């Protein structure tokens, strides 16, 4: 049948000609091709490409339908194909970025809005019980008190700077909730980072150590954080991550203050800190503001301690300096795991 639209999956990097066609279709729809997308579902009518949807891990991106083919049935079929493709790759839980004006369309595909930067971007997930269930589990870990603090850290790896920040925050609050970024794309694995934080804060009273989640500083909420080297993070990405924190995570745990170390070296983290003051405190939102407390970094011999500096020293094989910047457990870990080159 010549009228039928055929769907199939392609890798845009392996198939250069199709990659070019996808770019063209996206350009028609005012979208940019994203290099990180490993797979595309394509819909063809005869020889012409009329629909596409990209899948980057568990994030749906670059969904486009050619202007002449827009109508419920084609797009719903396209989204069904993407959902099944994702499942084959082991992802039932999906996220999706779109312009707020398209939110109602994706709601028809089983996606639910998580956060919106008005006029710019919305983040959606494909389950009605995702963040609600997560916040329900967090609520069980609420602690009493008027001043409840929170720190979210990557701890890549855990340094004396992290330890100082945690100790200071815990001493200033009735209770402190400490999260370790879960995404496993840093130099040190999540398991190891978490274990080092755990041993590094073991003797600090008044805190709960939590596993991170997809709803905070993850590939989904903050796709660019893990690609710092590429330069400045888009405003919207930090906004989505911070709005999720303010509107869901902070209310679930009753968090009133978020602590963060000043950032002297890394431009991405510095920008994140600045954006934090805007989106957690100043921006319009139905949720109560969270006070951002920026703590000056503790220094060693006049130089602020940072994990990126530790990684730099490791690469340079300068163990003598590393030793003065990290707790004993981190040092043991670094020396016993051949991170010394």
């Amino acid at each position, binding site marked *: 049948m010549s009228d039928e639209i055929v769907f199939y999956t392609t890798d845009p990097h392996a198939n250069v000609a199709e990659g070019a066609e996808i770019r063209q279709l996206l350009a028609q729809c005012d979208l940019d091709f994203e290099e990180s997308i490993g797979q595309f579902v394509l819909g063809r009518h005869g020889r012409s490409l009329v629909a596409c949807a990209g899948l980057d891990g568990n994030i749906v991106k670059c969904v486009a339908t050619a202007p002449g083919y827009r109508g419920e*049935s084609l797009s719903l079929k396209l989204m069904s194909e993407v959902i099944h493709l994702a499942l084959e790759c082991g992802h039932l839980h999906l996220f999706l970025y779109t312009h707020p004006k398209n939110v109602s369309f994706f709601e028809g595909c089983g996606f639910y809005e998580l956060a919106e930067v008005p006029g710019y971007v919305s983040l959606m997930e494909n389950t009605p019980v995702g963040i609600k269930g997560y916040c329900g589990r967090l609520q069980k870990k609420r602690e009493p008190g008027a001043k409840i603090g929170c720190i979210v850290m990557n701890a890549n790896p855990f340094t004396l700077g992290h330890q100082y920040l945690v100790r200071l925050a815990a001493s200033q609050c009735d209770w402190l909730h400490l999260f370790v970024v879960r995404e496993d794309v840093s130099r040190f694995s999540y398991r190891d980072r978490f274990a080092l934080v755990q041993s590094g804060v073991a003797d600090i009273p008044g805190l709960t150590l939590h596993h991170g989640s997809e709803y905070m500083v993850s590939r989904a909420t903050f796709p660019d954080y893990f690609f710092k080297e590429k330069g400045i993070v888009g405003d919207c990405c930090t906004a989505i991550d911070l709005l999720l924190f303010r509107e869901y995570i902070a209310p679930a745990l009753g968090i009133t203050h978020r602590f963060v170390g000043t950032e002297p070296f890394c431009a991405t983290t510095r920008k994140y800190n600045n954006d934090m003051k805007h989106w957690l405190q100043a921006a319009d939102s139905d949720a109560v503001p969270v006070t951002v407390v920026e703590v000056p970094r503790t220094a060693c011999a006049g130089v602020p301690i940072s994990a990126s500096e530790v990684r730099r020293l490791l690469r340079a094989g300068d163990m003598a300096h590393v030793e003065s910047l990290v707790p004993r457990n981190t040092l043991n870990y670094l020396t016993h795991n051949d991170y010394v080159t």
Partner: protein
Amino acid sequence: MKIVKEAVAGTLESSDLLVKVAPLADDKVDLVIESEVMRQFGAQIRKVVEETLRQLGVRSGQIVIEDKGALDCAIRARVQTAVLRGAECKEMNWSALS
């Protein structure tokens, strides 16, 4: 029948439905239904889904349904398929599917 892994059946196309199942730690069935025709047929859809789950002996699991106006027989078939996929069922009890 116990749901041991995440599974999907169906599509989002008109007159069909997408059923997603996932294991749940608690011993309860958490059923969420979204439908284009919720107001007219929401109660009927729920009845069909609950009946199908009962016949299959599902006592625990997260079930999410996106309905696009499917008939009862389609709802029953999609729910059965999703549950069987999620339960990694090898031995089929055909009478439970009738």
